């Protein structure tokens, strides 16, 4: 019987994971009124009397499984004093930031519903409120935590105004766009927003989730959460394909895209397929000057969690090599139930220079951090 996993000691070779940059940290609200101080009276009243209208078809179906009690959180993430996991900064420090001496934590706030709000004016107001809330509750109290600018991508003018308002504020590292939108992200209607992100030095992070209102897979609605989870891979594949094929990277050559929590082992195979078809269908997409894989490698970064665990652990090395160890960034997804621990996530030792890149240097370069 192989019990090596049980007795495996943490990877302590120079403690390479210590001081890492966490590319996926989830802050949560302490209560439903946390955003209220950042809403105008007009929108506060709207929130209280009418509320949000999401695009989700199954309106009351939760996004997460409940098996780890409380909407998919790690059980030991619940603050003893009450409140939701991710809402208590001292506990986040104890379980993540201080425990691993995290250099920076890139926030991905999945709260407020701004990105999927059908009432666009309200969506824009909530985006602003969530941005202010990140500063007040996370970034200012702990400067290691870097915000992600929230926008509603269906309201172009407001989205660009919000991006420009946050430009130059080093407390924000990137712009969040939910991958499940009304149309694939490469469509021209979204170009002005992507242009604004690039022009203002913000990478665009696509963190899994969002509620498009479309079935979550190309083949219809899944029955099980077990089906839903890998369907995020399909979403990410759709967006990568769209961004490449629409010529976005020709149009916006300094656009940087980060795929968060959508896995990564699929990316090489997608590139192989895109390159193959490009040779055959080049006449249909003459705006593509280079092979799709070249655009992907130049413009797209991936984060690790939930990390693939191949049956032969050494296959992870080939996968990372195919993607390029300069494009992979470590993430925990704290405090979610499927979060990864930097000591144990990789089931095989990585070369030291890869570790430095994946745990720190890639994110440091992408987000121009100290």
């Amino acid at each position, binding site marked *: *019987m*192989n*019990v090596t*996993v*049980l*007795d495996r000691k*943490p990877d302590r070779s120079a403690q390479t994971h210590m001081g890492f940059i966490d590319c996926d940290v989830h802050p949560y609200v302490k209560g439903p009124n946390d955003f209220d101080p950042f809403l105008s009276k007009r929108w506060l009243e709207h929130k209280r009397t009418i509320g949000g209208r999401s695009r989700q078809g199954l309106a009351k179906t939760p996004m997460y499984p409940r*098996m*780890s*009690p409380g909407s998919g959180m*790690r*059980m*030991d993430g619940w603050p003893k004093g009450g409140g939701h996991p991710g809402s208590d900064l001292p506990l986040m420090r104890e379980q993540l930031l201080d425990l691993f001496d995290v250099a920076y934590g890139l926030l991905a706030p999945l709260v407020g519903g701004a990105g999927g709000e059908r009432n666009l004016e309200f969506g824009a107001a909530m985006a602003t409120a969530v941005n202010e809330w990140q500063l007040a509750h996370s970034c200012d109290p702990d400067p290691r935590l870097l915000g992600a600018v929230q926008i509603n991508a269906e309201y172009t003018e407001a989205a660009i105004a919000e991006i420009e308002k946050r430009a130059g504020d080093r407390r924000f590292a990137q712009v969040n766009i939910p991958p499940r939108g009304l149309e694939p992200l490469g469509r021209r209607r979204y170009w002005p927003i992507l242009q604004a992100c690039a022009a203002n030095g913000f990478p665009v992070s696509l963190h899994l989730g969002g509620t498009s209102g479309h079935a979550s897979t190309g083949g219809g609605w899944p029955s099980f959460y077990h089906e839903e989870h890998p369907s995020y891979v399909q979403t990410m594949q759709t967006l990568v394909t769209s961004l490449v094929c629409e010529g976005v990277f020709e149009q916006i050559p300094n656009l940087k895209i980060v795929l968060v929590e959508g896995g990564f082992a699929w990316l090489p195979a997608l590139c192989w397929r895109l390159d193959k078809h490009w040779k055959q269908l080049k006449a249909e997409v003459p705006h593509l000057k280079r092979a799709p894989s070249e655009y992907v490698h130049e413009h797209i970064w991936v984060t690790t969690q939930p990390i693939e665990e191949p049956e032969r652990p050494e296959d992870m090395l080939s996968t990372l090599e195919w993607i390029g160890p300069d494009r992979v960034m470590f993430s925990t997804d704290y405090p979610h*139930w*499927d*979060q*990864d*621990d930097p*000591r*144990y*996530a990789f089931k095989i030792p990585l070369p030291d220079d890869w570790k430095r890149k994946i745990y720190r240097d890639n994110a440091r370069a992408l987000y121009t951090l100290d």
Partner: protein
Amino acid sequence: MDRHVVGSVTDIPPGGRKIVTVKGRQIGIFRIGDEFFGLINRCPHQGAPLCSGEVVSRLVAPSPGDYRLTRAGEMIRCPWHCWEFDIRSGQSLCDPDSVQVRSFDVAVEAGNAVAEGRFIAERVEVSVEERYIVVTV
């Protein structure tokens, strides 16, 4: 290997558990009916505090749609990634042949035996009328 007294049987009601520290190791002592089992408080997957997870049943489905709850209260579900293990054996539900949580022998001994025998009971006060949980580490 030493035998450590980690508490009185009345400390853990049926279905309950207690996490104790023996020789620097955290060990979850579980009570199923009147039987006691010990598992290391560390998940073989990513090191989470396994024994603080939920105690659940084993759900089996001989065919799609045919669900049967078995082994009520005999599985421990990791508080992080929800890997499930058999409390009696430490075996993984998904991969019983290759993944196992380290388990420890747990026995119940009468108070007079504990009082007279070679046990280590630093933090437990022993009375001859009681029965005690003894873990071998």
